[in-house]
């Protein structure tokens, strides 16, 4: 008897063998190495680490290779690995003010203390295909002006000194939430929201951020500062009782400066939207900052009427591992439920036919 969806083990195994061969492509072409991906597809690696919520360039590169460049699939691979890792504790907050700067720009002042550094950026490139790359020429030369930049003061601090922007002080002794260990509940606080946004799908956040710029929850943003570079990660082992550096990560931070708020008691001041990603996920960091600010509508007693301001809507749909799985589960057999629907539709049609016949 032929039943299309009943596959059995042999069919599944054969499909996976096909997949492996398909991923490899023509064996006459040299196989891609994980090193090549890690070095030359850095932005793919960055995105997989950010949304996979695991900082490991090598494993992310391996995931990109295994997923044949399907980044959402690669993110899933990394997440499924991450979830099996033991948890020793939480690091100290990273000090982005002490970042070894690779790029740092501000759109709100012509010049800022320490200067503006474009760094390696796609900005201002003309998007013309470079056919010389296809020929794979000689290695590009570092520009003579390339220099090491030390730590630079955050631009928002200039505003904060004069009280022009809301102060951002850590909540004393408050334990930071962990969305991987606590099921989501609403209303969700900002720590939890930022965690969800940090691992949220870049495309989804980009579209939501864009919607705020087009009037669906507008919040008048300025790019206060965007910085990329390397920061140290510190951890306090309980047996030592003081912080030690356990490694370095590359990160991109975006501080959006948004429309001011004030009240009868408080003079007006600018508000903040915050974005942070692993690697150089600048587009994602900016989108995250816009969405973070939009989600603070409740806190600032703004009207909540746009999708980007609706935390239950944003947080429950931002995760692409969840979304991808559930959308694609429609591929699984549903014929039992469809049979039940057929039963209902046929019965309804029979009743209408019977009524017509009786008339």
């Amino acid at each position: 008897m032929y039943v299309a969806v009943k596959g059995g083990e042999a069919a599944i195994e054969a499909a996976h063998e096909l997949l492996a061969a398909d991923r490899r492509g023509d064996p006459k072409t040299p196989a891609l190495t994980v090193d090549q991906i890690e070095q030359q597809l850095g932005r793919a690696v960055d995105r997989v680490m950010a949304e996979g919520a695991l900082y490991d360039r090598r494993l992310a590169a391996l995931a990109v290779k295994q997923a044949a460049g399907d980044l959402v699939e690669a993110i899933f691979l990394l997440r499924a690995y991450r979830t099996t890792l033991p948890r020793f504790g939480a690091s100290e907050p990273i000090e982005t003010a002490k970042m070894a700067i690779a790029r740092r720009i501000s759109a709100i002042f012509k010049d800022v203390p320490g200067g503006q550094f474009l760094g390696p950026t796609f900005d201002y490139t003309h998007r013309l295909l470079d056919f010389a790359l296809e020929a794979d020429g000689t290695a590009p030369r570092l520009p003579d002006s390339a220099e090491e930049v030390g730590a630079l003061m955050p631009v928002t601090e200039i505003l904060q000194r004069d009280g022009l922007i809301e102060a951002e002080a850590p909540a004393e002794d408050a334990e930071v939430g962990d969305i991987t260990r606590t099921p989501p509940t609403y209303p969700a606080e900002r720590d939890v929201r930022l965690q969800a946004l940090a691992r949220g799908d870049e495309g989804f956040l980009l579209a939501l951020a864009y919607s705020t710029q087009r009037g669906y929850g507008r919040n008048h943003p300025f790019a206060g500062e965007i910085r990329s570079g390397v920061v140290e990660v510190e951890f306090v082992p309980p047996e030592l009782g003081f912080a030690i550096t356990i490694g370095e990560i590359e990160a991109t931070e975006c501080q959006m400066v948004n429309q001011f708020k004030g009240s009868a008691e408080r003079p007006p001041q600018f508000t903040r939207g915050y974005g942070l990603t692993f690697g150089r996920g600048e587009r994602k960091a900016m989108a995250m900052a816009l969405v973070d600010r939009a989600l603070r509508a409740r806190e600032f007693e703004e009207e909540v009427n746009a999708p980007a301001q609706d935390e239950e809507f944003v947080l429950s749909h931002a995760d692409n591992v969840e979304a991808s799985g559930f959308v694609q589960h429609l591929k699984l057999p549903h014929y039992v439920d469809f049979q039940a629907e057929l039963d209902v539709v046929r019965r309804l049609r029979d009743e209408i036919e019977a009524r017509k016949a009786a008339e």
Partner: protein
Amino acid sequence: MSTGYNFAYLDEQSKRMIRRAVLKAVAVPGYQVPFAGREMPLPYGWGTGGIQVTASVIGRNDVLKVIDQGADDTTNAVSIRKFFAKTAGVATTTRTTEASLIQTRHRIPETPLKAGQIIVFQVPIPEPLRWLEPRETVTRRMHALGDYGAMYLKLYEDIARFGRVTTAYDFPTLVNGRYLMSPSPIPRLDNPKLHCSPALQLFGAGREKRIYAIPPHTPVNSLDFEDHPFATERWSQNCARCGAHDSYLDELVIDDRGTRRFVCSDSDYCDGRLAGGAR
């Protein structure tokens, strides 16, 4: 058995967390207990909730059966069974009577379950009120207040518009006279099997991070009205293989002219009847 991972994949801390949620779910029948669902190496929507519940309650001596659409040989059932054979090394079976633990998607076996058996349902959307109210904050309050008028109104509107309730599967149930519960997308034919079952029935929703349960011998009623009683699917034919007239039937289109053939969706039930000399 695959090494490098803990028994049944999940680490013991995660299993303990899930077991605590299961215990709470058993103590409050039909109530959706939030739990910190883990990412599984299978996609969300493909049974991650059921897999986590199974992984947390399975022991080395368990005999596992996995079905999807009632059959043991559907692709996803094969995949999940293989996952546990690999990570837990437990014995597997296709026989309902031999299984101590059954994970299912969309069906309850035709063979009545016995005391001591556990059935684990894979649940896509655990909230029965979700299609009436998209917000979790609101639906949780509705459950707290037992405010289920909206659901009765939906059923009533169906009757007013179509002359009958048009919910075909995932038909809402009231557990122990208290909580409105999604039975998962099982057909209506399976709903009566939930009622006072001697087996422990556990429901896992991985993406939505909810676990709920029906302890053995708990009353479970499908919503209806006195003048419009709950009704299950009916077929004008019997199973073309085993001749069963009481089982849920799959409709197979067997040629380009649209000829139909009806056979049991529960492959073990059908095979068992054939072996027993039916037909």
